[in-house]
């Protein structure tokens, strides 16, 4: 295989890796203290959530306020897995989540195939079938999990503790992502049929539901370690800058590769004009669901990482008011611009929690929330299409293919291809 390296890719990854090496060196030298390190990681996590929302809202045109709901689901499910491992020395969380996610996936595939054979089934009945499948999968996971928990725990105890913790952490985050994807699929099924504004309200509802459920996680579901409204403590702080950075880069890469393909064009065509997309043979519902699942998965993964930064989770972190944060970032950075989203996520977080906190005198920190909205307001007035509009850095930009090589005078195809009756572009 011949290796042809694209210059924009080289530049992009060059800058990314240099940035990582510099920050990592500064951390080890102690120049970048914990305060800035935490901010950097929070900024990156917020960038992931916002990137997910940009897929849903910026590229697919579906106004969603559900990002923080999925963020919370990802955070709590990943935290539960690592908590059980590090505090209780049990792989129960890992095993049950793994089995649950796998069975649910299988059930979804099964129901999906069944529905293909029974066309014309209305959405709500299909939704009912999927819900039944999910519940069965959950029960099966808990029952079968009992068999697998002891051997897996023993297996993991063989591995050195630090490495085992990293493995459990990685699995926890990835499984949290898959779980979020499945929840998004289930939730999106009936709700994506709604029009844009109604969809926004419904997703806002999801965020509120998740928050309320988490408030009562210890009483309603018996997850004692989540401690309901008192907040979950004792989660191992495993989200190192390395993991955070790696996940962010992977998400950018996945989003970019997807968007610059026929699938990405299909996704964007839904935003541009649904009816026209349909008349181009695009299955609009399918691509809405796909994008919603992808965007929500990004939020779920980000949640899993977020939980392991501070080691503390509280339902109030995922309050629905907060779910406007990614929305602000996406609109501020530029709808449909990956560059804008990343820059805005880091920028807003650094300014709001970093710079303003430092320059404002003691006792005036609360003024941040006066200055910040005013900055937003001025920005939106000056640049109504967002900070970056639809600008992308070269690597994330879709390149225009070179024009056809046939010169206007060439003989082979021209008399056939170029129609004699039409005016040329120049003639208008």
């Amino acid at each position, binding site marked *: 295989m011949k290796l042809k390296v694209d210059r924009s890719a080289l530049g992009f990854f060059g800058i990314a890796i240099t940035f990582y090496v510099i920050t990592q060196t500064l951390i080890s030298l102690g120049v970048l203290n914990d305060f800035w390190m935490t901010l950097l990681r929070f900024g990156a996590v917020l960038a992931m959530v916002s990137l997910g929302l940009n897929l849903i809202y910026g590229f697919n045109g579906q106004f969603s306020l559900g990002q923080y709901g999925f963020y919370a689901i990802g955070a709590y499910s990943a935290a539960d897995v690592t908590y059980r491992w590090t505090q209780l020395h049990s792989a129960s969380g890992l095993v049950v989540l793994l089995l649950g996610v796998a069975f649910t996936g299988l059930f979804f595939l099964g129901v999906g195939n069944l529905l293909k054979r029974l066309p014309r089934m209305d959405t709500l009945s299909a939704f009912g079938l999927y819900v039944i499948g999910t519940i069965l999968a959950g029960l099966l996971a808990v029952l079968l999990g009992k068999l697998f928990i002891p051997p897996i725990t023993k297996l993991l105890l063989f591995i050195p503790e630090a490495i085992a913790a990293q493995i459990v952490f990685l699995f926890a985050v990835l499984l949290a992502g898959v779980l979020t994807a499945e929840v998004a699929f289930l939730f999106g099924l009936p709700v994506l049929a709604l029009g844009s504004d109604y969809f926004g309200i419904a997703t806002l509802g999801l965020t509120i539901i998740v928050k309320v459920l988490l408030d009562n996680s210890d009483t309603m579901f018996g997850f004692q370690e989540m401690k309901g409204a008192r907040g979950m403590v004792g989660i191992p702080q495993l989200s190192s800058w390395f993991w955070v950075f790696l996940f962010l880069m992977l998400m950018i890469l996945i989003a970019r590769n997807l968007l610059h393909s026929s699938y990405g064009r299909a996704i964007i065509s839904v935003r*541009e004009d649904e*009816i*026209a997309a*349909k*008349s*181009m*043979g*695009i299955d609009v519902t399918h691509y809405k669901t796909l994008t919603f699942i992808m965007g929500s998965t990004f939020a779920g993964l980000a949640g899993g990482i977020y939980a392991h930064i501070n080691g503390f989770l509280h339902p109030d972190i995922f309050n629905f008011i907060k779910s406007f944060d990614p929305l602000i970032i996406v609109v501020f950075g530029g709808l449909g611009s990956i560059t804008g989203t990343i820059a805005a996520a880091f920028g807003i977080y650094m300014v709001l929690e970093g710079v303003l906190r430092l320059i404002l005198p003691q006792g005036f920190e609360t003024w941040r929330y006066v200055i910040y909205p005013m900055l937003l307001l001025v920005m939106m007035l000056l640049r109504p299409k967002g900070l970056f509009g639809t600008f992308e850095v070269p690597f994330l930009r879709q390149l225009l293919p070179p024009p056809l090589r046939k010169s206007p005078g060439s003989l082979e195809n021209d008399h056939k291809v*170029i129609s004699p009756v039409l005016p040329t*572009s120049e003639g208008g």
Partner: protein
Amino acid sequence: MSDLNSNSAYPQPPGPVESPSLILDIQSLNKNFGGLWAVKDFTLSLNQGELVGLIGPNGAGKTTVFNLITGIYATTSGIIKFKNTSLVGLPSHQITQLGIGRTFQNIRTFPNLTVLDNVRIAYHPHAGYGIMDAVFRTGRYKEREKVLTERAQEFLSVFNLQDRQGEIAKNLPYGEQRRLEIARALAVEPVMLLLDEPAAGMNPGEVVALMDLIHFIRERFNLTILLIEHQMRVVMNICEHITVMDFGEVIARGDPEEIQNNPKVIEAYLGRGAKALSDKLSGKRDYVT
């Protein structure tokens, strides 16, 4: 007062008499929007290669018929068959993939995308690679993407839009947007094309170019075309048969000449008084109601 033209089949064209293949067959199609019959007992059949016009005053239900054929609206009752496949209840994108392309009354290109992408989207059902190929940038992705792009570029050059491939669709002049929309509709490789008022908002020069374009694509792509149009010049010039609708019902059928002289049509367009007046002026017998 019987009218020979209305509610009867098309007169057979002179020439080969054996029945040409029926491509679109609509039987007693109905659509009501809560009490309003937008389309009532509508019947239409198109043979392979025909160019048929659908005309009628504003609000007659012409566009609704298009939306029913393409599955944008759900049919209340009736039969729509395309190449012997029933279209009733099929989702829109599947109907497109069966071979029906359409354009819209108010241009519906993808406004913020490039001209090239507008056409490439139409190739999506034939993308030929999976979503994982796209995410991991496999060889198949690269190969197929190249093929799709070249096909789209060649396609654009058929419409003399090849120099505009990088242009954002909404920045094109009006006539070119129309041309792009028609190009895009043809990129789905349709057997039948539905054109909804393609000449709307065009100046006389552009209209002439459009008529040439319709003739050109019809021959080149071997199309059957159903056309909605208000500009009588276009309809009378290029359509072989015309169906006239008013208040959701078919009021007349025939070739352009018959339609021009059909009293019902004149009445629908201009009102009764106008009909009487025009008859008086042309010295004909009064139209008695």
